[in-house]
């Protein structure tokens, strides 16, 4: 007799009919006297109506087919793996000792700094915080130039417009709003706020395209979207992630129309902005991908993840080409960015440090201490002369 013990209910074989829809139970399956201990068992009880049975079978065969193709893809990708990046990089000179110090400390936020972005003028930045404040600074002088109080706390995303005349921000309010920056410091910025994006969950990241007129957003609702700023119209939406999308980055090309996104489903997806299609997908991380950033040529991108590694994926090779990790690094990487030439990868971690990696050789070249709590965001300035880090210790630091 077959007995299945589910939770605390035992179904013995009786003539009772149990009409159950698909259910998931963790259970021990006892077949005769053989004890089977299986870590996860999914039990499907389907009433044996013909359609019901057929549907179950179709879904199952489709799933199997999908898995097979996925496996084949991994095989194909592996075939062209004739050498490791760091092996080829042995012929180039090692980098010397770096002297990177905090050159400016920006204090003023009352709570965790969650995000920041550079202005194209290479010295101004915008930052957002858990306390609901969005501040525009001249990082060079450390002066605060504008401050906006958002109606919600946890402003997780902020971005500077290409013209330097506006900033966008959002977070727990599920929206992305644009604030024009006025030259008149006394003017109430909040009054001119424009709501652009509407998601059904938190806004995790936002970025202007090459223009003040379009914004790309990513959200906890699992989608990314492109919006027309002036009208608030949705121009394109991007579906494909199966969990929260945490980060996005536009390709640094004059001609390209692609961007990459990373999420809690451990996937990094490359999208065509025109068609909304997912054109490439990578899934090798073991936990959430918190940050994605293109390599300056646009042919590759790096990711930072809660699995404590950063990885480099190349679009032409169509695979992961490097992992940046160390036994002593056990906290997740929250944010990554490249130096101008792509030789260095700056990564901020939840262990309060910033690790600097040699992208080609795969080694760590420096570890930067200074922040007193998690580093939540790291971005290199537009001309590569410095990078800025924001932290849960309420401060931002400029490093050079």
């Amino acid at each position, binding site marked *: 007799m*077959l007995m*299945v013990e589910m939770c605390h209910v035992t179904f013995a074989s009786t003539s009772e009919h149990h009409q159950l829809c698909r259910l*998931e139970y*963790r259970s021990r399956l006892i*077949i005769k006297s053989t004890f089977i*201990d299986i*870590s*996860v*068992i*999914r039990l499907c009880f389907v009433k*044996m109506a013909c359609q019901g049975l057929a549907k179950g079978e*179709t879904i199952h065969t489709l799933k199997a087919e*999908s898995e097979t*193709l996925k496996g084949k*893809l991994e095989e*194909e990708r592996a075939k*062209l793996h004739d050498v490791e*990046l760091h092996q*080829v*990089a042995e012929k*180039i000179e090692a980098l010397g000792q*770096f002297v990177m110090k905090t*050159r400016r400390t920006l204090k003023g936020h009352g709570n965790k700094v969650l995000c920041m972005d550079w202005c194209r003028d290479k010295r101004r930045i915008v930052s957002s915080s858990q306390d609901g404040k969005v501040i525009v600074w001249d990082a*060079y002088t450390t002066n605060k130039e504008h401050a906006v109080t958002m109606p919600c706390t*946890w402003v997780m995303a902020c971005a500077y417009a290409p013209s330097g005349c506006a900033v966008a921000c959002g977070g727990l309010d599920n929206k992305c709003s644009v604030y024009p920056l006025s030259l008149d410091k006394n003017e109430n910025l909040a009054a001119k706020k424009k709501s652009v994006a509407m998601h059904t969950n938190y806004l995790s990241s936002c970025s202007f395209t*090459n223009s003040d007129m*379009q914004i790309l957003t990513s959200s906890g609702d699992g989608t990314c979207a492109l919006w*027309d700023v002036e*009208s608030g119209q949705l121009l394109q939406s991007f579906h494909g992630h*199966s969990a*929260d999308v945490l980060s996005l980055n536009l390709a640094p090309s*004059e*001609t390209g129309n692609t961007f990459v996104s990373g999420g*809690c489903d451990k996937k990094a997806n490359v999208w065509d902005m*025109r068609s909304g299609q997912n054109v*490439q*997908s990578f899934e090798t991380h073991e936990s*959430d991908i918190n940050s994605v950033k293109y*390599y300056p*040529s646009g042919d590759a991108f790096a990711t930072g993840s*809660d699995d404590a590694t950063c990885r480099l994926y190349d679009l*032409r090779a169509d695979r992961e080409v490097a992992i940046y990790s*160390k036994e*002593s690094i056990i*906290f997740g990487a929250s944010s990554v960015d490249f*130096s*101008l*030439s*792509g030789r260095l990868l700056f990564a901020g971690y939840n*262990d*309060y440090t910033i690790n600097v990696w040699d*992208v*080609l050789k795969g080694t760590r070249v420096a*570890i930067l201490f200074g922040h007193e*709590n998690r580093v939540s965001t790291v971005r290199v300035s537009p*001309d*590569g*002369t410095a990078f800025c880090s924001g932290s849960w210790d309420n401060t931002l630091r*400029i490093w*050079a």
Partner: protein
Amino acid sequence: MYDKGAARGVYIHWSSCFAEFWLVLECTMAKNNSLHPNSNGETDDSPNMLVYRKMEDVIARMQDEKNGIPIRTVKSFLSKIPSVFSGSDIVQWLLKNLCIEDQVEALHLGTLMAAHGYFFPISDHVLTLKDDGTFYRFQTPYFWPSNCWEPENTDYAVYLCKRTMQNKARLELADYEAESLARLQRAFARKWEFIFMQAEAQAKVDKKRDKIERKILDSQERAFWDVHRPVPGCVNTTEVDIKKSSRMKNPQKTRKSVYGLQNDIRSHSPTHTPAPEAKQPTEEELQEQIKFWQAQLDRHRLKMSKVAESLLSYTEQYSDYDPFLCTPDPSNPWISDDTTFWEMEASKEPGQTRVRRWGFGINEVLKDPVGREQFLKFLESEFSSENLRFWLAVQELKKRPIREVPTRVQEIWEEFLASGAPSAINVDSKSYDKTTQNIKDPGRYAFQDAQEHIYKLMKSDSYSRFIRSSAYQELLQAKKKKSKNLF
């Protein structure tokens, strides 16, 4: 014994009475070996858990009899200090066993582990690691953060109250604790009698324990509260990223009561919503997935060796322009507090290094506003600027608000593509036909095909002529720069 590794799918047909049901078992193995299944066979892969498990692995190694940290009982004045090890013991162990090269790094990692409560200084509320003879003790697994503790203020009140009953100098409340106790007394004024009774009961039980055992347990309990109610100014390591906290897989696992004051198993923390059932993919979604994988399989891939060479050469080419690798001329403004570098970049007269960069590829010219200007000027001198002007116009079109797009599309069509256009460009017939179709329903990408064709033309023709031109060569020679200081 069933071979876990071999399990893929098992179909079992129920006999007789269950004949109406198909039982389909899908055995899915834990995909990742680094995740530890708990007793239910459930793997909790939430980001915080991942870190806790890693720290716990390190702790386990630290506690190993052979290769771990030697734990000893130290005699001190009239008493014994049980079960301790020194801060420098920890630092040395980390340096040796986790391949850490630097003492500062070992100290930092150790401090983090202390801040999470895995070991603690026996005489300090502040959870930090010192590389000296300061004594530390391991925390008992019961109090580990991986048990999802979220102790309530009522428990904290009981704890602080209990401390005041124990009349020992070493257990005296610190200032911040006394303040907390006062605050809690006000907040829980109505149930204070109950709290007091609990504290009394606890104190009674504690008194009956063995002296040495008490010392250890007291310190561990204190360390637990140092994690969950840290000293003001210290980092609260129990804080979570709100984006991840709402994905708590198992709200039932949250433990809220240290002293069993409430029926905590069933209570739900207000910030945690039960994780939604993982959605099963629909048939259409699966068909889409299959199409996607097939398209990916058809993709043309480059060999790793080729890709590596490409990455190397790109980085090599731009390393002179990377301020982290090569000091900018005259200096990095952030380091020298001198903005000359920025002023030079802003000037209309491009320096030699900047002009040299335009030679790297057409994108460099198009990216740099001065480069674009020079390129345009050159083409105008040759009366062949319509291609670049078209390309620039289409780029501009994509930046307009959607409202202005239809008009702009028409204007661009009239200027560059319509019959008799003043700046007629040459596109292949395929692109031309497509564009003719597109402008009937004008969108931002109406000229996409034409633009791609023109870009290729410019790249192979106009751009190479520009780089070879005397105008460009002159700019290149213009300013002789002094040699850079390599770092």
